[in-house]
C-alpha cells in the first residue's frame, strides 16, 4: 500500500490538487482526503472498454489498436467535412495534436464548451471578463454570488476550497464574515445555504441584470416594481450589498448559459460586474464544467486564434459558433463523419442532433463506454488522464496544473492515438500522391 499526495483531480473545473490516495497493486483502493464525492467516484474507477473495436454488420467486434487507428484514418481522410468534437476531458498535449489533425484534414473542430460555457466565451468576446484566480476569491471576497449555478451538487468542493466557506487572508473567519447570494429559478441545495435567495422567473435573467445595472448606474427611478419576477425592493437590496462589499465575486453556471438570451445573459452579467466596479472591486467567473474545458479553449486559441467552433477547410481557421458548433452541424446534417474524443454527445446533445450522428461514420476515443458508443463505428479505448496519463490542464480560472500519472496501464494515452491517426492520414495522402 502506498500513499500518494498532491494528486490532481480530473473531474470538474475545480481541479482540486491536494488529494491523498492509497494505491495497492496498481489500484486506487481509498481516497483519503481532498476529493468531493463526485471526484472520489472518478478516482476509484469504473468499468472500462476492454479493447479497440470496429463495427461489422451492426456489431462492435474487438480488434487491435493498429486496425482501429487505420480504420479511423480512412474514415477521416475520405470525409469532405469531418467533425472532431470533444477535447475537454483530456490533456492539452492531446488537444494540440487534435488541432494539427483538424488543420491537416480541413476539418471542423469543436469542444464541449459549445454546450456548456461557449456562450460565456461569446460574451467575453463582446465585453471582456473582469476576473481573478480562485485564491483571490478565497482571500478577499466578502460577497459571493452564485447565479444560475448549483455548486453544492455540480462543483461540490467549490465553496469549501475557494469561495463562501473557505478561509483566507482577509477572510479568516470563513463564512462568518461573508454574505452568500444565490440567484436561481428554483430553490436548489445551494440556494438553501444563502443569506439572500433571489428567485427569478425562468428565462428572465436578462432583464434582471439590466435592472441591477441601471440601479448601480444611479437610475433606479426607471426600474419597474417587479422585474423577471423579482420585486424591486430585493433588487435594491442586492445592489446595496454590492455597493457595501469590499470584494464582490459572482460565479455563474449553466442556469444562465442554457436559457433565454444565452450568451447575452452573460454579457449582461459581465456588464453588471463592470457597473459594480463603479462602487467597489468586483470579479466574475464562469463555473467551468469539465476539468480541461478551459484548457482546450486555451490551446485552440493560441494555436488557431479562436477558442472553439472553428473550420479549417480552407487551410486557415474560420470561427463561428452557431455555424460551426457540433450541435449545429449534427442538427443540420452538415458533416459526413465524426470523431468524438473525451466527451459524450450521445448523453449530452439534443436528440434532434443525434439522429445525424446515427447516420454517419463515428469514431469514439474514450476510456469508458457511454451512450455515444451506440453510434460508434470505431471505438478506441484510452488511458485515463490524471490517473494513468499525465499532462497539462487549465482550471476554471485558467490556472494551469499538471495532472499526475498514478497507475500503470496498457491503454495508450489520447495523445499517442491521435498522433498515430495523423500519421496514417498523412500516409494515405502520400499514397494518393496529393
Amino acid at each position, binding site marked *: 500500500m502506498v500513499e500518494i499526495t498532491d494528486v490532481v483531480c480530473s473531474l470538474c473545473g475545480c481541479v482540486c490538487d491536494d488529494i491523498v490516495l492509497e494505491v495497492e497493486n496498481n489500484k486506487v483502493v481509498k481516497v483519503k482526503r481532498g476529493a468531493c464525492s463526485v471526484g472520489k467516484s472518478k478516482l476509484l474507477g469504473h468499468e472500462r472498454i476492454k479493447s479497440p473495436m470496429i463495427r461489422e454488420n451492426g456489431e462492435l467486434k474487438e480488434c487491435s489498436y493498429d486496425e482501429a487507428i487505420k480504420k479511423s484514418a480512412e474514415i477521416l481522410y475520405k470525409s469532405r467535412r469531418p467533425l472532431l468534437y470533444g477535447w475537454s476531458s483530456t490533456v492539452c498535449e492531446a488537444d494540440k495534436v487534435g488541432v494539427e489533425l483538424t488543420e491537416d484534414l480541413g476539418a471542423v473542430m469543436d469542444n464541449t464548451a459549445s454546450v456548456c460555457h461557449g456562450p460565456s466565451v461569446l460574451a467575453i468576446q463582446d465585453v471582456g471578463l473582469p476576473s481573478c484566480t480562485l485564491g483571490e476569491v478565497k482571500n478577499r471576497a466578502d460577497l459571493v454570488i452564485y447565479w444560475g449555478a448549483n455548486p453544492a451538487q455540480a462543483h461540490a468542493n467549490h465553496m469549501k476550497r475557494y469561495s463562501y466557506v473557505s478561509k483566507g487572508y482577509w477572510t479568516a473567519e470563513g463564512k462568518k464574515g461573508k454574505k452568500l447570494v444565490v440567484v436561481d429559478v428554483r430553490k436548489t441545495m445551494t440556494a438553501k445555504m444563502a443569506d439572500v435567495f433571489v428567485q427569478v422567473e425562468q428565462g428572465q435573467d436578462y432583464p434582471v441584470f439590466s435592472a441591477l445595472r441601471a440601479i448601480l448606474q444611479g437610475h433606479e427611478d426607471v426600474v419597474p416594481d417587479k422585474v423577471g419576477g423579482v420585486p424591486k425592493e430585493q433588487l435594491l437590496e442586492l445592489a446595496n450589498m454590492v455597493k457595501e462589499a469590499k470584494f464582490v465575486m459572482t460565479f455563474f453556471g449553466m442556469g444562465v448559459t*442554457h436559457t433565454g438570451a444565452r450568451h447575452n445573459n452573460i454579457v449582461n452579467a459581465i456588464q453588471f460586474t463592470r457597473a459594480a466596479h463603479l462602487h467597489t472591486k468586483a470579479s466574475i467567473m464562469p463555473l467551468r464544467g469539465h476539468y480541461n474545458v478551459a484548457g482546450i479553449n486555451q490551446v485552440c486559441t493560441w494555436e488557431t486564434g479562436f477558442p472553439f467552433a472553428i473550420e479549417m477547410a480552407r487551410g486557415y481557421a474560420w470561427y463561428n459558433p452557431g455555424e460551426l458548433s457540433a450541435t449545429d452541424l449534427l442538427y443540420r446534417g452538415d458533416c459526413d463523419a465524426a470523431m468524438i474524443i473525451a466527451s459524450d454527445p450521445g448523453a449530452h446533445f439534443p436528440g434532434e442532433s443525434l439522429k445525424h450522428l446515427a447516420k454517419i461514420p463515428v469514431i469514439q476515443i474514450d476510456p469508458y463506454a457511454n451512450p455515444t458508443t451506440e453510434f460508434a463505428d470505431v471505438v478506441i479505448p484510452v488511458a485515463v488522464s490524471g490517473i494513468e496519463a499525465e499532462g497539462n490542464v487549465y482550471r476554471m480560472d485558467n490556472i494551469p496544473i499538471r495532472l499526475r500519472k498514478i497507475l500503470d496501464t496498457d491503454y495508450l494515452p489520447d495523445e499517442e492515438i491521435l498522433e498515430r491517426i495523423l500519421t496514417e492520414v498523412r500516409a494515405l495522402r502520400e499514397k494518393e500522391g496529393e
Partner: protein
Amino acid sequence: MEGMNVNLISGRTTVQGQNLDSKLTEKYFGEVARCDMNGSDMEKLGVAKDDNVKVTTAYGAVVVKAKQDDGNPEGLIFIPMGPWCNAVVSGDTHGAGMPSFKGIDAEIEKTEEEVLQVKELMRTYMG
C-alpha cells in the same frame, strides 16, 4: 387527457456527476431518467414518487419517473442533464451554438408507458 403545460429545465446533480463515467449503469438510470417537480404539481397530475410520466415537447417525447422536489416552483419541472432530457430538446441553437437546454415549453402527463433504458433510447435515433 390529464396533461398540463410546464416549463422544463435540466441541470447537473451530484449522482449524475458521480456516474459520468458509468452511464450504462442502473445508478445513472435511476438518477437521470427522472423528473423533479413541485408536490402540488404531482397532485394535479395524480402521480406519486416513481410513477411514470411522459414529457412531450415540439421536439419529442420521453418517459421518466416522477420525483417530488418542492424547491421547484409550480409549473417548473427539472430533468437531470442526460439522454432522457435531451430526447425532448431542440437542436436549434439560434445561431449561438447552444441549444435551449432550459426553458422548454412542455406538456407532462401520467403514463403507463415504460421508461426506456439508455441503449433503447439511443436506438430510437437510428433510422
